């Protein structure tokens, strides 16, 4: 329960001082580089400033009122939530599956790990362009594969019904490797004797092994992976910017893209700031809720 009880004893005062001294460089940088600017953005959201303007005019909640009335914003919010709702479970699920499979084979483990991790290490900017080729309606890998399998095809990035899904596919492709590696790490932390105890208790099928030991033991790793994946999913930007620019018909418009679009491209800086604020509030709420819910169920041993 180690309580923070600074100053109560000589060593305590020294410990507290040392702690501040050690934390200070990072804290100052964190405030200068991240939190301070965020506060600045918060303040900016109450003005009518536009990039390059000489003056700044205080307009109170004006931007937020405009936001509430802006259908693009609502679409964007909805899309973001859908994107996160699709890509997080998919990334986590596939990442877990890959981790289980990779850990269950003896040979080529390093190869598989590297193959699945490679997308994490790639420049999304370039890979988004490659994916455009992949999704090409006629000669793209995706549609050729689907056609070979006798499945229906579509112009993925141009069909408002599936474009967001296609973007999510790329997101999953990119983040899956990280989730996998984190799960692999989690798996290696599961004591082997639990599986042995389980085998003697009468369960040695893969499903029971997974359900009774692996899954519950991965709890903490799961919390971590979900949190990281959710944060990264909320921040989806590059793919949308390069591939669809929010289209067709705003079907891939996501919050961060809208924010950058308004703030940087349309030069409505203050309005973009207001979107940022809403974005942060949302990520905060959802990430915290997710983490708390999962965390309560996870076991830390």
């Amino acid at each position: 329960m180690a309580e923070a009880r600074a100053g109560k004893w000589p060593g305590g005062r020294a410990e507290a001082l040392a702690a501040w001294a050690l934390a200070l460089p990072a804290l100052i940088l964190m405030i200068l580089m991240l939190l301070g600017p965020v506060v600045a953005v918060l303040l900016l959201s109450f003005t009518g400033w536009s990039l390059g303007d000489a003056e700044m005019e205080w307009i109170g909640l004006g931007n937020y009122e405009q936001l509430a009335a802006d259908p693009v914003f609502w679409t964007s919010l909805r899309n973001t939530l859908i994107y996160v709702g699709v890509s997080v479970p998919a990334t986590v699920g596939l990442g877990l599956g890959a981790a289980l499979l990779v850990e269950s084979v003896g040979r080529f483990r390093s190869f598989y790990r590297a193959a699945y991790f490679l997308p994490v290490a790639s420049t999304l900017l370039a890979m988004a362009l490659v994916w455009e080729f992949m999704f090409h309606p006629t000669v793209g890998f995706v549609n050729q594969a689907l056609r070979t399998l006798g499945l229906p095809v579509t112009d993925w990035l141009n069909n408002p019904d599936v474009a967001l899904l296609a973007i999510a596919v790329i997101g999953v492709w990119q983040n899956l490797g990280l989730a996998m590696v984190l799960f692999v790490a989690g798996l290696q932390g599961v004591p082997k004797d639990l599986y042995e105890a389980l085998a003697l208790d009468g369960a040695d099928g893969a499903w029971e092994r997974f359900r009774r030991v692996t899954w519950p033991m991965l709890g903490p790793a799961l919390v971590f992976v979900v949190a990281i994946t959710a944060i990264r999913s909320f921040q989806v930007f590059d793919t949308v910017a390069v591939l669809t620019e929010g289209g067709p018909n705003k079907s891939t418009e996501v919050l961060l893209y809208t924010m950058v679009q308004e703030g940087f491209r349309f030069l409505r800086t203050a309005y973009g700031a207001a979107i940022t604020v809403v974005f942060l509030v949302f990520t905060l709420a959802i990430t915290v809720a997710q983490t708390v819910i999962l965390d309560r169920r996870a076991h830390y041993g």
Partner: protein
Amino acid sequence: MVDRLGPLFRHAVLLLGAAVMLAPFVLMLSLSVKPAAEIFAPQFRLLPEQWSAWENYSAAFTKVPLARFLMNGFIVTFCIFAAQAVTALPMAYALAKLRWRGRDTVFGLVLLALLVPPQVPAIPLYIGLWQLGLLDTYAAIILPSTVSVFGIFLMRQFFRTVPNDLIAAARMDGLSELGIVWRIMLPTAAPALAAFGCLSFIWNWNEFFWPYIAVQSEHLMTPPLGIAFFSDTESGTSWGPLMAAATVTTAPLALAFLLAQRAFVRGVTMSGVK
């Protein structure tokens, strides 16, 4: 079930997955050796009829100073990681092992900062750096990334697994708190730090948005800016050189991970994830 399906089946599934994961890279390589005329050929071919590898790769290196960009990439990512390690380790130690009023608040701030996407602080930072006269320098690229909240978080998780006795022993042996960070925690944390270093390298190497804003001068630019150079919507993207640049940019990361993957997995294993 997976057990009974046998290793062959597992390998089949994994291979299929690996094929999907690698397909874009194969395509990237394929495009990077094709002449412009073949990129939109009616029938897709993996290998070009007429190789343009030389043209594309030399364009990638001559139309932009890609070699210089690569070097900048190394300089920048190295400095960033060094700074991140120097700031994150003490803070993570203080958060994990010291008792002080304000610890929970500071940790709360770290978690909060974890949620901030890089685009958000861009404009205030830009103006701030301008006032310091630092725009268009290496410092402009490096400074905003000198603190990694992810790194602080990861290292804190790891430090929590270090036994308290080790720290008590060090204190009795006469080490100061800073001494404990460098002499005790840093070497103990080496694997976790390597894992974090790997991710820091990857993420900062690939960062496009901020370096693009922060620097003007070509001799300061980082590899992703080199890729963007070839993408031109108005008069057509130069696919071959672009893919060549992308290949060259991705290669160090792929290599780094291949070399470091065991340490990486071990590092993550040892930190708070489990």
